[in-house]
């Protein structure tokens, strides 16, 4: 990797500038329901004898997509989980207990896998889960499982808003930002762009639908003068987007919003470029455009629009410019030979969230750990995460940035724009 020092500093500078912009913006439009952070982690003192967990090994079940077209995502989850576990064990484990991981493919009936993890493998916690449907399926039986489940990728808002907040399933947590990132924050980015007519291409499933709904709704309030010209809905697993692209190009839209991800996004971007989409669209917002599989696959060919190809993810390795993040990225690269994908970080941090909670609770009792997780504030590579007590959603911010090819092997970002998480996350009671 040849991100040289100067580039890195430039990014950091951009990031810091973005943060300031975001913070000012956030302050100016602070919603009434912004809540104060009231609790922090008490620092544990090592070596005190009575602070021990009842078991010598803490077992964590890890669920991810490990077969089929999306199996890279299960690999990301595995990489994050392994790195965290190796680090924790190298430093004496959690209160002296070793951490052990058990991996399962969520594509092989996720409910069966979760049950087996709990009842046969006797895991104490479950982390991971890529697909929204699978997250809701596990969420549906979480009380029967009786173990804490930390979702680290699945983006459906219903997991935290409905299952946790409305139905009171307290065992579910989520370390990754949900669809707010793809809908609401994308709208905050869009409102500053000098374009009026938007088009959308999103997957014909809940994630794509909700992304577009939140995007249009939020943008219309922020910028009443915008128009949404056309919306296209390719089905999940579309291998060729040409008819959609020509239909998009036939409209009079000036900019494009998409929450298409992974391999489909690679195809979409390449075909969009080939068919002249980047001559037409002045700006493109690709909500998961900085997912590392896409960044590596497109590489130097990542197209840039006149006003920017604005991309984001649920975490991006170059943000925030903190020591903990830089060190995490370095260790990750040393361990896996690649920059960390977002679900690697969210899983990594989920395991550290558990560590912090266990050190506070000094117990493996789910209720005690739930109490310790609720309101937890923890410094992670992605920034400060606050586990909101009402919906068990980790609150942290990830910015958007413009793709740039200045002097690096991997496309970097410039003009990072961050908006305070409290501004773009939805808040209880989620009406």
């Amino acid at each position: 990797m040849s991100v040289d020092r100067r580039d890195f500093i430039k990014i950091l500078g951009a990031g810091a500038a973005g943060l300031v912009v975001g913070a000012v913006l956030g302050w100016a439009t602070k919603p009434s329901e912004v809540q104060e952070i009231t609790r922090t982690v008490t620092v544990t003192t090592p070596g005190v004898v009575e602070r021990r967990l009842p078991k010598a090994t803490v077992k964590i079940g890890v669920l991810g997509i490990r077969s089929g077209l999306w199996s890279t995502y299960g690999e990301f989850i595995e990489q994050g989980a392994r790195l965290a576990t190796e680090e924790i064990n190298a430093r004496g484990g959690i209160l002296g207990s070793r951490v052990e991981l058990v991996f399962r493919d969520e594509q092989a009936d996720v409910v069966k896998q979760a049950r087996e993890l709990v009842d046969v493998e006797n895991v104490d916690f479950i982390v991971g889960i890529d697909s929204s449907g699978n997250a809701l399926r596990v969420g549906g039986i979480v009380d029967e499982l009786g173990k804490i489940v930390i979702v680290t990728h699945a983006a459906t808002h219903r997991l935290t808003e409905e299952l946790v907040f409305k139905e009171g399933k307290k065992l579910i947590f989520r370390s990754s930002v949900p669809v707010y990132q793809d809908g609401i924050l994308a709208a905050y980015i869009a409102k500053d762009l000098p374009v009026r007519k938007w088009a959308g291409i999103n997957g014909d499933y809940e994630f794509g639908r909700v992304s577009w709904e939140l995007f249009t709704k939020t943008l219309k309030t922020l910028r009443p003068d915008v128009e949404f010209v056309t919306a296209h809905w390719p089905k999940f697993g579309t291998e060729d987007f040409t008819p959609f692209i020509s239909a998009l190009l036939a409209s009079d839209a000036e900019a494009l919003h998409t929450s298409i991800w992974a391999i489909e996004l690679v195809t979409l971007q390449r075909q969009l470029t080939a068919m002249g989409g980047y001559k037409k669209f002045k700006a493109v917002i690709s909500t998961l455009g900085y997912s590392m599989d896409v960044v590596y696959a497109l590489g130097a060919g990542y197209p840039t629009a006149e006003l920017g190809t604005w991309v984001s993810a649920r975490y991006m390795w170059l943000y925030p410019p903190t020591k903990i993040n830089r060190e995490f990225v370095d260790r990750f690269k040393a361990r896996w030979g690649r920059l960390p994908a977002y679900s690697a970080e969210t899983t990594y941090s989920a395991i550290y969230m558990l560590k912090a909670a266990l050190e506070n609770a000094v117990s493996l009792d789910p209720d005690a750990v739930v109490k310790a997780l609720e309101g937890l504030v923890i410094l992670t590579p992605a920034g400060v995460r606050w586990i909101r007590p009402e919906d068990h959603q980790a609150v942290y911010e990830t910015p958007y940035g413009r793709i740039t090819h200045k002097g690096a092997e991997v496309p970097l970002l410039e003009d990072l724009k961050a908006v305070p998480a409290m501004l773009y996350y939805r808040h209880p009671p989620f009406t």
Partner: protein
Amino acid sequence: MDLTSFLVQALIGLYKGSLYWILALGLVLIFGVVRVINFAHAAFYVTGSYLMYTFYTYTSNFIVSLIIAMIITGALGAIVEITIIRRVYKLETIYQLLATFGVALIANEAQKLIWGKGVVYISIPETLSRGVNLGGITINYYMALIVVTGLLLFIATIVFMNYTITGLRTRAVWRDPVMSEALGINTRLIYTLVFFTGTALAGLGGALTVPLISVGPGLADYLIVTAFIIVVIAGLGSITGAYIVAILVGVFSSILVLIVPELDIVILYIIAALILLFRPHGLFGER
């Protein structure tokens, strides 16, 4: 909706239909002659894509890589025919379907082991990446090449089947394998050859699409149903029918994307259901 965008959409549909056709061709051929529904067909197609990717990355020679990818895929097909498929010819369709389904599962996982889980593609060769601009939409020469290749393959198949002695033998086996055997035609050899040709065509199709789409392990799962349905709508085993139906489905669904964007997810199945309800043996099926 102005006329230009409508026509462009139809052109895109022509390209899309040609892709469908190239995917379906080997399937029709194998079903027609060997009477096996090859569920692994798309897995061979994707194998062709991967091979193309590997050889093109190393040799940077498009034509050579294309031919190598095609031949290796065909050879793999022949191996599968000799070791597995040959033993299920006399069984019921469902067993053939399941055996080839097993082959598809293994092929998917093998692709993951060999080429990794990541996304793979190659760029369109420089000379073909340019194109014509039609109302703000660039249609590059590579897309045109796909349409032309599709048509050429169609003509070549028809000519081969109707005007060559091997074609005659193949048609004889197609019509009546027992009688052909009695007349001294080596049906076994014909079956292996047809399987080789069918899967090599799949490999060719897969290799041709890597510059256009992106490939990952298990992509085949998303392609095979489309190919199936086109073959069935056409009437099982009808080559001309498959070509016409592939093009029609491509054009029709493409235009529909422009007019009713909401229907993409279901359109193929609605077409299939309607056609089969009114023409139970497919549009070009004989009975």
